[in-house]
């Protein structure tokens, strides 16, 4: 696997997700995860795409992404130079006798229990992909009933935004970039 995280700033228009996804699909590249959401500016969305692809074809895809009329910026985020997070909801088997053990694992990963039934717990966890993988590995023996993950979102470290400018002031206060 050669996973790369690409951050794509797009106009918030119908069809833009299909256009972006199409550039990967036509080459047979599998999108590992994809998260889309609003940004600090109305009318603009950010897509964070994690894709399993080699360097050379990836460069061509990035150039093709740039050519899309609704795409404003494309940036590959190097793991060392970016903050990456993902949210997972895990419904795990936890009958009365095992509930404490499952809760303990959740605690270790600073995850929260957000739902409980007679036989299951639903745990909400946030973190780097590695951290979530580690937690899921520990929960697995108890029996994972269902799992939903948001896919990775990421921002470059430091003060600069994707547009190459300092972050804009939001609500009068300069937003501070923290690691």
């Amino acid at each position: 696997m050669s996973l790369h995280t690409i951050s794509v700033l797009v106009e918030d228009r119908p069809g833009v997700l299909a256009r972006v996804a199409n550039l990967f699909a036509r080459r047979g590249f599998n999108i590992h995860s994809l998260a889309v959401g609003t940004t600090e500016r109305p009318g603009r969305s950010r897509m964070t795409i994690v894709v399993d692809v080699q360097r050379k074809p990836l460069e061509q895809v990035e150039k093709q992404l740039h050519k899309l009329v609704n795409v404003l910026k494309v940036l590959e985020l190097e793991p060392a130079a970016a903050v990456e997070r993902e949210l997972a909801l895990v419904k795990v088997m936890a009958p009365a006798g095992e509930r404490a053990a499952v809760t303990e694992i959740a605690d270790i990963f600073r995850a929260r229990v957000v739902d409980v039934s007679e036989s299951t717990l639903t745990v909400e966890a946030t973190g780097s992909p590695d951290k979530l993988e580690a937690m899921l590995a520990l929960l697995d023996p108890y029996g994972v009933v269902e799992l939903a993950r948001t896919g990775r979102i990421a921002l470059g470290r430091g003060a600069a935004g994707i547009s190459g400018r300092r972050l804009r002031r939001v609500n009068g206060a300069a937003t501070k970039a923290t690691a």
Partner: protein
Amino acid sequence: MSFPSRPTGAQALIRSLELAGTEVVFGIPGGAILPAYDPLLDSPIRHVLMRHEQGAGHAAEGYAHATGRAGVCFATSGPGGCNLVTALADALMDSIPVVAVTGQVPTGVIGNDAFQEADITGVTMSVTKHNWLVTRTEDIPAAVAEAFHVATTGRPGPVLVDVPKDVLIGTAPFEWPDGVDLPGYRPTTKGNLKQVREAVKLILASERPVVYAGGGVIRANAAAELRRLAETGRLPVVTTLMARGAFPDDHELSLGMPGMHGNYTAVTAMQRADLLVAIGARFDDRVTGNLATFAPHAKVIHVDIDPAEIGKNRAADVPIVGDAADVTASLARELERAQGAAGGSPDRKAWLSTLDDWRRRFPYRYTQDDGPIKPQFVVERIHAATDGDATIVSGVGQHQMWASQFYRFSRPRQWINSGGLGTMGFAVPAALGAKMGRPDQRVVAIDGDGCFQMTSQELATSTTENIPIVVAIVNNGHLGMVRQWQELFYNERYSGVALTQDVPDYVRLAEAYGAIGLRAESPHEVDAVLDKALSVTDRSVVIDFRCDPREMVFPMVPAGGSNDDIILGPECTEPALDPAEAPIA
């Protein structure tokens, strides 16, 4: 008729097309686009009723090819739009500005599998530069303005505007935008001067330069700048299939066409060059052959308006993103300045005389005897009969290669063909479009019998719309290029390539469509038939040239092979040069 303050979407659409400079629309109406056809009656825009939407698309391409302006085509929803797909893909590959407008089922039933519904923006997403689904009547003018802007600027290409029927019927205030604001679309046109100067250094340092001119030179109207650059630096020029006419074939620095069926000198000059100045060219596989062995000694200056082309196939030593006319003019200017300071252009005598020697020894060759007509002979005689001044349109295959090899082009936009996509059936409708765009020109389609049969119904359009063209069919009774590959690479096992020369009877077919049908069966008849055809100006003429089915296109670099292994063909008596020997004899 005064323009209403709250026009219908259909009126707004036609008005927008007028304001965008449209003079002709090629199309076929149908249910969903019906509202747009009513205001068309009151518009100065001429509608040319085609017989198939693919024909409408290719006609729009031919118009754009010939004029440099966007070609416009109309189709209805569903099958209408789907039939445009091939033409849009063709236009995308060859960077041709086309604006397609399609009707769509009413917004309320989109996605309901309504009658004649197809998700045409979805279908055409990967064969257009961009497309729009307009969901509000008031958005029509902006969508049309954006569509023309995107189609004609940067690297040109096809766009599609899909308008649901209720949006065409609804009314809204009309506002034609002052400009277009697309924050994600800002093509770079001015070349970086620092890079231009780096390129000039490479040109001055090179001993064996070759300018590799591609279709971008035509799209950017950069032929004059190219000539200035070549003459300033004494740089020999190859013109790719898409660039034929960008540099005059009779110029002393012209090497003609490179590539799979290019001439030996053009192909070998690139192989032995120490510098390629690529302008608006994309290192297509049909030019490079096996990339690993292509132009192994050459440094590369790559000028292209599309940054995605640079480094895609061949790494560039000096990449310059920008408009070919702008950058080529800068290159010529900076080269002039540098050579002025150095007291003239570098000594190119050895290189140019080597190329001259190759040109003498390895011209395109064929022999016309008393036997069947050779296709090459037909093209040469068409060149003579038209004084080399016709606009030549071709389909795809052997006839296309012979037309490109044997017609001597002297100006840009004189040669119109389907290069990248290789779309059979392109010639007849594209010729009609070209004739609409340039009624002052004699338009001759050189077509194959296989290609012709894919779109021959547009002869009806030619007659009823009074758009006279000449169609010269190189009739060899086969899908000739496929036959050639089967002869050379499949042990002469001919599979699915025989069409027969007699079906249809092209003369009677032409007559059935109201055109004039002529036939030449021996080489002695060729000139007389051409003279007769060219004497007709009030209707189209179809000529059935019964040609030798066994004739093959040479030279040839087999697909995926190295350009060093070019096959010269049986007519050539000279042995090819040894790639290992010194590049300049």
